[in-house]
């Protein structure tokens, strides 16, 4: 018998042909199976939008942004105090690294600064709130992070710091330890070496996902340190953090995503190396979010740490459907409001709460976008049935 071409490659010779893969019922993954593409960006079509170059510098918006940045940047004294507080804790932790025999509950592998303080993108907490200025440390343990070990580490730190810092309070949280000193705080994010991840048990130890998260925080910090150096980038991160602080709907945008988004908006300038000014980059960030950057069907942003696009990341998607919708409709509303009343969106001027209901902004009737996906029912939608009223019946009557 002579065959022209084997039907299967040699390692599949005796197997049945490929079956159609099992399709799970409606789920998060359904959207990801669909074709997804990059979201639309004005910068990629310069020939269609010739006026875009003129829009790069928006003097009005730039002035407002600068004003806002002044307001949200912590005072020099505050940030100096925070630095002192952080470095003292760091010193004590370094001692544990250098002389592991002095502390038996756990062994510390390394200590690293992460987060907004390290990247100089820290902003003032909202006025009137009790949230202190915070800097973050990641402590990688060689041993397993049991609850007891964490408590003992807290006690040890308390002992060491007793004489140097007054008013110190230490509590253990679900991510590690939180040390507070009046209006400052240092979050100690605990994690363990990746080799130990398999043996983590959430009843005894820190949660595995939190351990991973804290570990990735180190990588993220490295990347941000290396890549996001442009002042425009740092400015944008601050603006977005400030926006997130004031509008609850932007909550799903975690600090890492803010960094990614800011970097994308400032640097990815249609194959040119020119960095965009903050006024345009800020607008662009909102435009991208409004165009559904994190909606199903879009690739999202490229995540250099996971080496994949954020929306395609497996196994756990970064946001639930409800969060995707919330993020999108909030930024859509903000984008429209920005065009009408930029001072309100940036927070330099008070205005009516645009999310409360229909209102008038600078002479324009403004209605905020409504959610279409709700938390309890991921398939849900906001339209009631009376409104739908079967247009088809009418069309075809």
């Amino acid at each position, binding site marked *: *018998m*002579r*065959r*022209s*071409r084997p*039907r299967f490659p040699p390692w599949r010779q005796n197997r049945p042909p490929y079956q159609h893969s099992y399709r799970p019922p409606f789920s998060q993954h*359904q*959207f990801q199976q669909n*074709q*997804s*593409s990059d979201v*639309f*960006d*004005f910068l990629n*079509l310069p020939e*269609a*939008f*010739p*006026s*875009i170059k003129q*829009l790069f510098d*928006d003097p009005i918006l730039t002035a407002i942004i600068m004003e806002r940045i002044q307001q949200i940047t912590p005072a020099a004294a505050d940030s100096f105090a925070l630095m002192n507080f952080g470095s003292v804790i760091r010193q004590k932790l370094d001692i544990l690294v250098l002389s592991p025999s002095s502390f038996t509950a756990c062994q510390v592998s390394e200590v690293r600064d992460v987060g907004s303080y390290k990247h100089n993108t820290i902003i003032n907490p909202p006025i009137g709130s009790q949230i202190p200025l915070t800097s973050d440390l990641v402590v990688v343990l060689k041993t397993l992070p049991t609850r007891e070990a964490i408590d003992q580490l807290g006690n040890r730190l308390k002992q060491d710091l007793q004489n140097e810092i007054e008013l110190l309070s230490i509590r253990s949280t679900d991510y590690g330890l939180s040390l507070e000193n009046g209006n400052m705080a240092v979050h100690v994010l605990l994690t363990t070496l990746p080799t130990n991840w398999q043996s983590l048990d959430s009843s005894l130890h820190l949660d595995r996902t939190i351990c991973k998260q804290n570990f990735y925080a180190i990588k993220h910090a490295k990347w941000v340190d290396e890549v996001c150096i442009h002042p425009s980038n740092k400015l944008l991160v601050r603006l977005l953090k400030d926006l997130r602080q004031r509008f609850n709907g932007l909550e799903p945008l975690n600090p890492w995503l803010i960094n990614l988004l800011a970097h994308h908006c400032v640097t990815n300038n249609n194959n040119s190396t020119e960095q965009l000014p903050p006024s345009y980059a800020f*607008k662009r960030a*909102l*435009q*991208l979010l*409004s*165009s*559904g950057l994190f*909606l*199903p*069907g*879009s690739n999202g942003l490229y995540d250099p740490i996971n080496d994949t696009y954020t929306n395609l990341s497996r196994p756990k998607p970064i946001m639930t*459907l409800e969060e995707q*919708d919330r993020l*999108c*409709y909030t930024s*859509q509303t903000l*984008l*429209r409001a920005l*065009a*009408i009343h930029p001072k309100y969106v940036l927070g330099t001027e008070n205005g009516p709460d645009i999310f409360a209901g229909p209102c008038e902004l*600078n002479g*324009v*009737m*403004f*209605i905020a*976008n409504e959610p*279409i996906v709700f938390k309890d029912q991921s398939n849900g*939608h906001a*339209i009631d049935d009376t*409104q*739908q*009223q079967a*247009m*088809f019946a*009418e*069309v*075809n*009557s």
Partner: protein
Amino acid sequence: MSNNGINYSMYNTYPYTQIVQQQPLYGQRFSNRHLQPPISYNAGYQMYPSMQNQPQYNNSYDHLIQSAAETLAAFTSPSEQTILNKHQAHIPQKNFHRRSVNNSSSDAKNSTRIYYCETCRIACGGLSSYQAHIKGSKHLKKETNSQNQPTNSNTFRCELCDIICTSSDAYKSHLDGSKHDKTVKLHQKLGKKIPESIQQPSLPINESQTVEIKEEKQTLNNNIKSIGMEYIETLYDNTNTIKSYYCKLCDCKFNDANAKDTHLKGKRHQLSYKKKVNPNFEVNTSNNNNSNKNKASSSNETVKHVYDQQINHNYNQTETNEDTKYLMMLHEQIIPTQNLLDAIEQFVKTVESALKSCSEQLCSLTTAENTELDTNKTSLMGISRIGLLVKNLLIKSDRLFHLVVICKEWPTKNLFQNLFSLLCDIWKNQTNIQCYKHEDTIQVYTNINEDQMCISISLTSLSIQSNNDVNIEQYLSKTSCLNALNAMHSVRWFQQHVTTRQHASALIRCLRYKTKIARNWQSLSSEAIEILIEHTLTKSISPVIAFRHVLEYLAGGLILPNNPSLRIPWQTDSIKDAFDSLNNQQRNDITHEAQIGLRFMAFGHLNKWFEQCDIPQMMLSFQKRSYSDDDNESNSVKRQCTKSETIEEHNKS
């Protein structure tokens, strides 16, 4: 209609590649008849009498005049023109070539050529890979092998696949197998002869009879015309390759074109076609009367057209969970029926002929006066259809159409008044046509089947752009003239750029439908949608993605104040904004609506967006039964005929 398949009884009726390419995503039931003939430069038509002493125009607007002249010519001899157009519209390209060259045969018709090595039975994707294969050692070995192959009388050999089976069972299972099936298909595709021994295998065993029948069936099936091809939907993935096919009638999916072809010819498909589309369709239960069958299917072709409307109703019940499916369904519903189009065409032609006679009267008026005044001043140069009518973008609810009369000079109010009174004279005795003046346009209303239609006639002149004077009392306002000119440019751009794109008009119609039903989108002009669709279709591949991109454009603040707005592509000299006329409130509203739409689409509820309808009055026009009912068809046509005759008589008198 002639059927090529009868001549090539051995092969598929339709060449494979043609089916793949001709699959329209959205049923395109517009005939070319309603399109203005494309712009050509060699028009030798007689212009208006007043035009005869005109010098040659030296600007770029010649084509506009000429296209206008062509429309005029088209209705002076309507029978020929329509027949010609019909002829072009209804005969698909069927003259494909089959070419077999020595060792390789290629389907020359298409860009996707297939190179086939007969010795090794391998189809190569391209010329280079074919040549590489020919030079390869495998091929050479097989070539030498095939020359001294022993022929064994005890074995069964499938000539097609070049496989030798030792027993009849093995042979039978081979014939049933998918590999053999594929080879047969490939050969049919390439237009090769299927060896006789396969069709009539001279097998001594009784069981082989079934095999024989099966084979025969298959070849017979090839003669059966594939019916209901318009219900096959082609799904693309994002690299423009065809991912799969979906048969809407039978609700099943195929991964390759062959499976789809077989399905189209299959009994199940035919039965569901009979059930859902055409009850008169004859499902052939016997395989014997081949010729009969062909007749049935070709006669069915004509019947099918009539029933085309009815299947739309059937689709309402089918579950649509995908955006493409939904858009397609929506498009089926909003596309105007043939009857409606005919009625519109009739009405427009009536108005056009009336305008023509007006022009003649105006001309004779001036010559009769024979004053020293510039005789050209009052002359009308031509009529052009503008807007949706000529762009072929009408949806069911459209009742307002636009014509523009091109004048030699900047039209005066005097001329406008004359034209108006002449038109009123013409329709004095017609009860169902009324003429009104509305600012600088003449509005002609008519009632056809209790349905009001309106044609808005505006006047413009090509000389107006070079004229820098601001509004003078005696002339019509400059802005309205410029708007009309702009619309003409838009038509020209549309014909050059958008009509060539496959799904453009379907998508535009869907978006236009939304502008009709949503208050927020009412201010979004059709031109803007056309430009957006053109942009997105150049960038993205599949129509759904293009649709989504339009929403992304708008949702991302394209038209918000202080944002990049759209350049009008047909205005090269000045950078003008396509959304100039909108105020902040409208910009905000349009963006808002698009943002909602984008999220609905992203979460798979596109239908809900289209079902949100806050203008209930708009739907009234859909409720008219007159155009969707087949019963009324002859009636309305008759009425139109009588009407047009009376108009013509009136014009003559």
